[in-house]
Structure formats: C-alpha cells, structure tokens
C-alpha cells in the first residue's frame, strides 16, 4: 500500500467517525423533564459567581434561576423561551455556553479548525521533512493539499457536531424557528404579556384566544382567573368595591373550572386559596391549602399561600 493510499484510508475513517458521531448526537431519544432541568441548570451561569453554573452554585440568585427553570419546564416552555427570558433579565453573560447558531457557531468550529489545521501544518513541516531529505526528494506540494483540505473538512465537521452536542441546542432537541405555536407556547406568551409591557388586558385577550381553541387548557383557565383576581385589586384601589367583587367572582369561576378539569394542578389550588381568603372563607382556605400541600407544589406556590395559611390557622 502506498503512502497516498494510506492517507486516503485515514481520511475515510475520520470522515466516517465524524458522520457516526453526528448521527449519534442527533438520534438521542427525547430527554425527560428532569434531564432537561439538569442540562439547563448546567447551561446558565450564576450572575454573581464568575462563570459557575447555577447547578453548582449556592448563591440565592442561582437558586432562584433553578426554581425559574423548573417552573418553566413544568409549564411546557421551550429551551429557547427559557433562554430568551433569562438573557432578557441577566444579559448574554448568563449563557454559560455560547449558542450553537449563527456567528456563535464560529466559536465552536474555529478552535477545532485551528487545532487540526495547525497539527497538519506542523506534521507537514516537520514530520515529513526527514524522509524527504533521506530520499533526496523535495516535499511534494501535491501530497500535502488533499491532506490539508481533508483535515479542514473533518475539523469543521467535528466543530459542528461539538456545537450541536455541547451548545444550547440539544437540551430538548427543539430546533429554532418552529412554525406552529402550541397552546402551551401560547399560554407562555400570554403570561409573558401579563408580566411585560403589554399589561393585563391584552394578556387576558391572549388567554381567551387559547381557550377558544383549547377550552380545557388548565393553565390558561388558571392564569386567566388569577390575572382577573389581580385586576380586582385595581378596582378596589379606585374605590369600586362592586366591580372588585365582580372581578373576584369571575376569576374564581375560571379557577373552579381549572380545578374541576385537573384537581392536581397546584397553581389553581393556590390561587383559589387566595381568593377564598379574600372572601373570608377560612374553611375553604384550609381545605385548598391542604390539597395544595399534598400535591408537592412548586416552592413559589407555597410562598404565595404561606401567610394566608398562617392567618387562617391552617
């Protein structure tokens, strides 16, 4: 076998390895929610910990981000939505690993290209020269070219695989730019509207749109009810007690529907406890909180109802 044939053989082997790695990376099964949470917790930097992942940090803000990630995953938010929320609040520095799309891909690809190309260059410069000198023949440019080009192709391939596997994509396997918007995604958008600049009215309209296509969506029912309850406090502040009471009743109706559809959804239980407390119905408050505690609810819901439970002697 000639030296050139051996080189081609190595090249084919390396390309095959790169292709297999790519297939293996893309063919992984769908991860569980806990897998997603674990990977996401490793993907974001604690904002006050100098590059430490939130999964490894004991800082309060890291705990808060972990809670946020868990809640968002349970809510059905995509990795992109979680990333966008965190970047909007803490800036790009919260990304522990650069995203694997666009210009950022270069950050993954270039180092591998440089490493492999540099290695080939060094081998071509120093590794082959003694043999050439021994034979008295000058190094052949024609032999170096295919090896160099092949090496760069392999390096780019490995870089792209690395970006796909180690970059942000790959947590839930979701590709960016999904055309369809699921009811869950729409609920997330409605909640973002309520928490963002748009205010409550567009958010309530947004929930109505979700419910028009998915009338039993418990998240839409629950949060529509809750935001109506919050709107009641505005009416009360303006001295309109009748409107406030009407809004509370309306919000409670949505919460009742949510509980009827899924009695195990903790957010609806927690919000209903708040409404009952406001309506001075201590027995119902304690019953709801008892149900809530049995559901292993998110910490946020326990915090929300903590003072109410105390006040009502639950």
């Amino acid at each position: 076998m000639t030296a050139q044939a051996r080189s081609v053989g190595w090249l084919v082997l390396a390309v095959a390895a790169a292709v297999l790695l790519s297939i293996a990376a893309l063919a992984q099964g769908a991860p569980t929610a806990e897998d997603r949470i674990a990977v996401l917790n490793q993907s974001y930097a604690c904002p006050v910990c100098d590059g430490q992942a939130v999964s490894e940090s004991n800082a309060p803000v890291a705990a808060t981000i972990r809670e946020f990630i868990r809640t968002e995953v349970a809510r059905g938010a995509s990795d992109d939505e979680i990333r966008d929320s965190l970047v909007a609040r803490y800036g790009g520095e919260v990304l522990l690993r650069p995203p694997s799309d666009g210009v950022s891909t270069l950050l993954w690809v270039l180092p591998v290209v440089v490493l492999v190309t540099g290695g080939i260059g060094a081998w071509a410069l120093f590794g082959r020269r003694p043999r050439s000198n021994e034979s008295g023949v000058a190094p052949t440019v024609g032999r170096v070219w295919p090896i160099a080009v092949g090496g760069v192709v392999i390096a780019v391939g490995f870089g792209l695989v690395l970006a796909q596997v180690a970059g942000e994509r790959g947590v839930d396997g979701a590709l960016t730019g999904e055309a369809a918007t699921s009811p869950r995604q729409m609920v997330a958008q409605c909640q973002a509207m309520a928490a963002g600049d748009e205010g409550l009215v567009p958010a309530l309209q947004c929930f109505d749109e979700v419910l028009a296509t998915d009338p039993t969506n418990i998240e839409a029912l629950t949060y529509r009810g809750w935001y109506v309850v919050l709107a009641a406090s505005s009416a009360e502040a303006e001295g309109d007690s009748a409107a406030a009471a009407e809004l509370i009743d309306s919000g409670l109706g949505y919460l009742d529907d949510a509980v009827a559809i899924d009695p195990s959804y903790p957010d609806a239980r927690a919000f209903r406890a708040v409404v009952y407390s406001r309506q001075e119905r201590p027995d119902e408050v304690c019953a709801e909180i008892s149900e809530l505690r049995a559901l292993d609810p998110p910490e946020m819901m326990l915090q929300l109802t903590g003072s109410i439970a105390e006040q009502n002697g639950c």
Partner: protein
Amino acid sequence: MIRWLSVAVGATLLGLVALLATGGSDDDATSALVGQRTPLIGGITTGGELYNIDDARGRWVVVNVFGSWCPPCVDEHPELVELDRWGDQTGEAELVSIAFQDTPEGIAEFFERYGGEWPVLNDSQLALQLGVAQVPETFLVAPSGIVAAHWAGPVTAEAVAATIEALEQQPSQEPATEDSGS
C-alpha cells in the same frame, strides 16, 4: 504552500485571540429595565393583602428587593424606614419590598426587629423578573409606570428623594439615561 498554510493558521489564531480579548463581559450594574415599563409586581403580601403595583399609578413607587439574611440589607433598612416616613409625609412616594430567597418567619422577624410597615411580597420570581442578581437592589418606578432609576447595593433615603425631585423637574419624568446607583 506549506508557508501559506502556516500563515493562515497563525492569522486565525491571532483573530481568535483578538476576539476573546475584545469580547469581554460588560461589568457595569445597569439594569435593562430602566426606561422600560415595570413588570407586573403583584401578589399576596406577607400581611395577606392583594398588591398590584398598577394601583399606585400616579405616584412614585420605590421597589426594594432584600433578604432578611443579608447584612447589607440590615444596614440599608433604616434608610428605607426614613424613606417610607418621608413618602407618607409628602405623599410623594410609596414603598414595596420584595423578599428574595426568604421565609415568612425570617421576614416577620426582620420587620419586627428593624421596623417598617409597608407591603412585602415574598416572591423570588418577582425579583428574577426584575433581573435582580444580588440584594439589596432598588428600583424607582415613575408615576407613569416606567422604571426611572435603579440602585444596585444599599440605597439611601436622600439619594432616592433627590432622584425623585430631580426627575420631577424634568417635563415628562423621563428616566435617567444611566443608572443612578453604583
């Protein structure tokens, strides 16, 4: 050819070094919220009342994020008590606190020991909505609902009052172009 290959590798390496050297993080403490409408700050207070920051539209609202476990927050608290008193007397401003990674017991003991009576929301996720990384942090929300100023670290009553007075001199209560805090 080998020489050109080496030059190309060297140039790429230099480019990478330059990219890494100039792509450092932005270490200033500015909040992206300044100049934006405040996120919805609402929920059940530790006193069991419904709170919604929109109810305070037309007044200045000082939103303080703190932790009962946080020594700088203890140091800051007398300033907030004074600020609350000033707000009550002048009708200029009201105060709301958001407890960060705290417990109802811790908050109750904190206010019992250091004083103060204003709404407290025990909700770390609200702090996350504000982009809070380290307590104490304080946001000043204008009567229009726009976040007008932000302080990272302990705040003084004098600084907040001065900021409110300065912003009131401006025709449309435009937010400060930069954070007022450190």
